[in-house]
């Protein structure tokens, strides 16, 4: 166990260095990547922010609570960008393009490669600052009385949200094992499904629509539901926390089951995307 942890840390250090070197090629590359991520992230939450500013809140959410929701949403996205970059969160591309072989031939377990290879603390951090900024800003406006227990819940919720997003991506991405060409870009759509709608409060929805958005397409579990729990909009808090944790476990179990089944199929067929002389079909 300790050896595994040491190795993960060593690999993170290695990939962080490589990520820094990639950006150090020149100021144009660095500025383009960083500004692009920054602007894309800020734009993604600006619509909700403008509405909250215009109407001094949205429904049961005050303006400051909306800021927290947006900050939380950006933080989840930023952490996925930092830890699962280079198409690790878009696994259908790796599988569909036959690039999983590049990981399988490495002398280390697959889970370790998937956990470390996408570490991009420099190029992937464009959304981190606006996310943290919004959280700090909202925290001051809300005058949150944060205790160590609250921080523990916050960390647990962020982890659960990240696990749900990744599980959703891997569940859909696993289809690329069976349909490499048709499903190669499926994670772009599944990613958009979750991230475009995550910064919106879903309180106005009811019935089937709301149930769908916390189960089939778990948009509500990315930021809305955990933020409600952390801000005390939902009560009792422990019930919301339990529901979120169980959801994360259920989504992760489904993703692991489907991914391992796909991997077994891949073991028999391999990639069909490359011709003998190396060109992609």
């Amino acid at each position, binding site marked *: 166990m300790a050896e595994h942890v040491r190795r993960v840390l060593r690999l993170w250090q290695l990939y962080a260095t490589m990520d820094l070197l990639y950006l150090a090629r020149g100021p144009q590359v660095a500025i383009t990547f960083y500004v*692009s991520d920054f602007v894309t992230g800020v*734009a993604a939450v600006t619509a909700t922010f403008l509405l909250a500013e215009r109407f001094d809140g949205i429904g049961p959410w005050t303006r400051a609570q909306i800021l927290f929701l947006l900050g939380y949403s950006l933080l989840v996205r930023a952490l996925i960008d930092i830890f699962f970059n280079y198409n690790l969160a878009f696994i259908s591309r790796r599988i569909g393009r036959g690039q999983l072989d590049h990981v399988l031939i490495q002398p280390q377990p697959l889970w370790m490669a998937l956990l470390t290879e996408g570490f991009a603390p420099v190029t992937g951090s464009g959304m981190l600052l606006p996310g943290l900024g919004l959280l700090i800003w909202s925290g001051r406006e809300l005058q949150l009385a944060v205790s160590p227990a609250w921080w523990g819940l916050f960390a647990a919720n962020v982890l659960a949200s990240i696990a749900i997003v990744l599980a959703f991506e891997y569940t859909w991405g696993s289809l690329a094992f069976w349909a490499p060409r048709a499903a190669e870009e499926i994670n772009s759509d599944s990613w958009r*499904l979750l991230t475009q*709608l995550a910064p919106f409060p879903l309180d*106005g929805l009811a019935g089937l629509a709301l149930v769908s958005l916390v189960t089939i397409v778990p948009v509500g579990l990315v930021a809305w539901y955990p933020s409600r729990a952390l801000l005390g909009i939902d009560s009792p808090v422990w019930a919301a926390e339990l529901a979120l944790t169980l959801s994360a476990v259920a989504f992760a179990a489904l993703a692991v089951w489907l991914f391992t089944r796909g991997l077994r199929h891949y073991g028999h067929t391999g990639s069909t995307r490359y011709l003998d002389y190396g060109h992609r079909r």
Partner: protein
Amino acid sequence: MSAGVIGDSPLFVLEYALRVLRVLVLLSLWRMILEGRPSSGGMPLGSVLTYTLISEVFAQQLQLRTTLRDAFWEGTLVIRFLRPMGLVRQLSAEMLGRWAIHFALFSLPLLAVTPLLGVDPRPASPTAAALFGLSLTLAVAVGLALDVFFGALTVALEQPVWVIDYLRGAVGTLLSGSLLPLAYYPWGLGDAFSWLPFAAMAWAPLAIFTGTGDATVLLASQVVWAVALWPIADWLWRANREKLVGYGG
């Protein structure tokens, strides 16, 4: 050929699911905000709901994208130069074919279920309907010019295709009013944004459809942007043609 888009990638259903969910979320959001606030300014609730729905029905026209970025990514520009037809005409033809498919499979069914969503999809008046047609045509002209402009900019700056594309998509959605009506932006931002070319792509036709803005001013701004943008886009494209070799041209 355009039907091949669906045949090649049957996962277009996911994209449709996203669009339906987006409409549902936005409609619920507006109801949550505006119900019980009759004097909230901007637009009445009914008009905002119509605006949101029509924005999704005509999403492909109001947030226009040709296959230029795909040609960059796949390195197939050189093949297009060999064809006996101008590049913009080729891109437009492909775009129109795709529009026809998605309009039939998504937009028309969405219009058909509007009573279930509690939204009146009709334009503000017959005149508004006629002017919307004209405005939509101008919006397409502006959108096409911007697509060529950003394509040329990608080449000029020698940047990865998707970096510029994501940036344009994110900023464009905000500035064009395709997601939220500009009338509801705070601090006078909507008024400022309405003078930008992105607003000529979505805000202008949708404001005309819902009878929100002065149609003459909105149409005039669209004409100005269409006339101004095409020479700029054409010049930038020609100025950077030689660099296209890096993108498969």
